[in-house]
């Protein structure tokens, strides 16, 4: 709980630190790109750039939600499971609809209907997280850990443990299509990022999110309705995980029951590398995007260079650690 940033007179310091944090991730990304392109001439090509962008778009969606949650000094461990469940629900509704044999009722779903249902379920699960955290004072770590298991269980129940595949044409556009020369997933994640930046920088809700993470007690005393805002944040995180789930499902033309396992860790890594403090109140969406890009470039580069899979895990862990060490050093010298 050190370094509580005063809202008014510390504004300039805060701005300065933001620039610094953003700058530092950018430098890291630049060095990484130069290093990889020196070692492989296949890295800095147009198709590979689109590859990396498309691959990270799912992580970006989840990480944006995670950033909002972490800014309130919370955490959401359930995003990977929620992603799997929402992808599976969209796929299942699209392919099989709902049959209620007792009433001899069949409900078919259009593409839009199935997607909206998936998004709604994601938002509902997020809302439930927020509700458990605010109403019953369950620590976010525990509440979302429980949801991680619950949502995975529901995914298994819904799919019966088997993938739901061949979802028909039209649906694959979300994951594999192109629009104005840019892959559709990149559009989606771009819109999510833009909306989140506006939310955090330009709206009262965004300022409250920072305020809650900075000092929850002070925020409460100044009349901010903490519970409502926390619920909104977890709901957003759930809905964004659902978007990620629909994109993954569309890309693969298949909803895998084991999709999204450990995605929460990738998202947390992106948030942390991007310079958002896990104790809340400090960080930015743009930083997280850079964090996600760094992870994506690393994943891509290590494969391009055919680095042994054993070493890849060591390198990725090392990068996360290094990023946080540099970040800590910077906050101290602020």
């Amino acid at each position, binding site marked *: 709980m050190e370094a509580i940033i005063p809202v008014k007179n510390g504004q300039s310091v805060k701005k300065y630190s933001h620039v610094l944090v953003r700058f530092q991730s950018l430098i890291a990304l630049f060095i990484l790109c130069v290093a990889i392109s020196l070692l492989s001439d296949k890295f800095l090509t147009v198709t*590979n750039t689109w590859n990396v962008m498309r691959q990270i778009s799912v992580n970006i969606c989840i990480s944006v939600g995670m950033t909002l949650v972490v800014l309130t000094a919370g955490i959401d461990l359930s995003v990977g499971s929620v992603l799997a469940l929402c992808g599976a629900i969209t796929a299942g509704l699209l392919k099989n609809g709902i049959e209620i044999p007792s009433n001899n009722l069949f409900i078919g779903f259009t593409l839009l209907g199935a997607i909206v249902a998936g998004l709604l379920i994601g938002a509902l699960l997020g809302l439930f997280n927020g509700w458990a955290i605010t109403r019953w004072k369950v620590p976010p770590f525990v509440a979302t850990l429980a949801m991680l298991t619950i949502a995975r269980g529901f995914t298994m129940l819904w799919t019966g443990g088997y993938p739901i595949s*061949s979802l028909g044409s039209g649906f694959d556009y979300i994951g594999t299509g192109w629009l104005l020369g840019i892959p559709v997933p990149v559009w989606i994640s771009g819109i999510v990022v833009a909306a989140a930046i506006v939310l955090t920088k330009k709206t009262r809700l965004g300022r409250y999110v920072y305020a809650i993470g900075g000092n929850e007690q002070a925020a409460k005393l100044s009349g901010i309705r903490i519970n409502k805002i926390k619920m909104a944040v977890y709901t957003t995180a759930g809905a964004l995980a659902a978007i990620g789930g629909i994109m993954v499902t569309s*890309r*693969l033309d298949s909803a895998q029951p084991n999709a999204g*396992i450990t995605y929460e860790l990738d998202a947390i890594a992106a948030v942390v590398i991007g310079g958002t403090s896990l104790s809340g109140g400090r960080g930015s969406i743009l930083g997280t995007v850079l964090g996600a890009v760094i992870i994506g470039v690393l994943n*891509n580069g290590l494969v391009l*260079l055919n680095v042994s899979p054993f070493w890849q895990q060591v390198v990725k862990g090392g990068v996360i650690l290094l990023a946080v060490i540099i970040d800590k050093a910077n906050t101290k010298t602020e």
Partner: protein
Amino acid sequence: MNIQKRFLPSLFLWVLPVLFCLSACRNNPAAGKPKRMAVVVSTLNNPWFVFLAEKAAAKAKELGYETKIFDSQNNTALETDHFENALASGYQAILFNPTDAEGSVVNVQKAKDAGVPVFCMDREVNSTDAATSQILSDSYAGCVALGKYFVEKMNKQGTYVELLGLVGDNNTWNRSKGFHSVVDYYSGLKMVAQQSADFDRNKGMEVLESILQAHPDINAVFCGNDAMAMGAYQALVAAGKADKVKIFGFDGAPEVIESIRDGKIVATAMQFPEVMANTAATSADEYLKGKRDFPKKLPVAVELVNKEDINDYSAYGKKE
């Protein structure tokens, strides 16, 4: 605070009787000594193992046993708990798919000491006498056959990529070694990249997308399971190279069988989970009826499936 104070004690008051009731429900049928078999499976997070467990349970049920499936979630410690619970609640036999060849030995031994026979399915435990019988999928031999077909289809030359499964998994290396035991003899066949995609469809696609950047002209991809093969196929379609690159999988999953028929994937190695599950359940039944001589190891062949003989096969097995 207030809410918690009122809520917690009342929660306990409600939950405790329910728990008593549950254990009572569990004990009652055991008193009447029905015949019961436990199915302990390494994971239900993978369709192949779901199929194996369901088939084993179905066969046992057909033979007149009550069954329950225990999911070890790839965790040997959890598996130990399942064994203890199964032994304590009076299961007479265990149909077992181990999480780990070494780590699972103690569990099997514990069951043997308690006089409960254990029949291993698909994966083995490294002990010659703990399990009553081990009905095993011969991954290595299956990949030798696949490797031979690979060499033939490639005309002994070309470049290829190998997608490995989870690098900490025995099966990953059994399959890889079987494949390389053949293919490495041909100097015309060059492996340009060997990367792990964790047996996962999404990772398979993403890893191959990246590899295709470094090696756009590969001729083939060998995948350690069918999920990765489907992912690889999707990456190749997106790159417009699906018709130029030959894909080889392993498992015999439903979609890959369809894909081989359509010529999208060249071949896979068919395992027979249903055969293994049925053999295990039938053997356990025979054991409980008095039979004692079982082969310690019963290998179940892994067969090559390609377009020529695809009509003999369906998902996870032969056509009936």
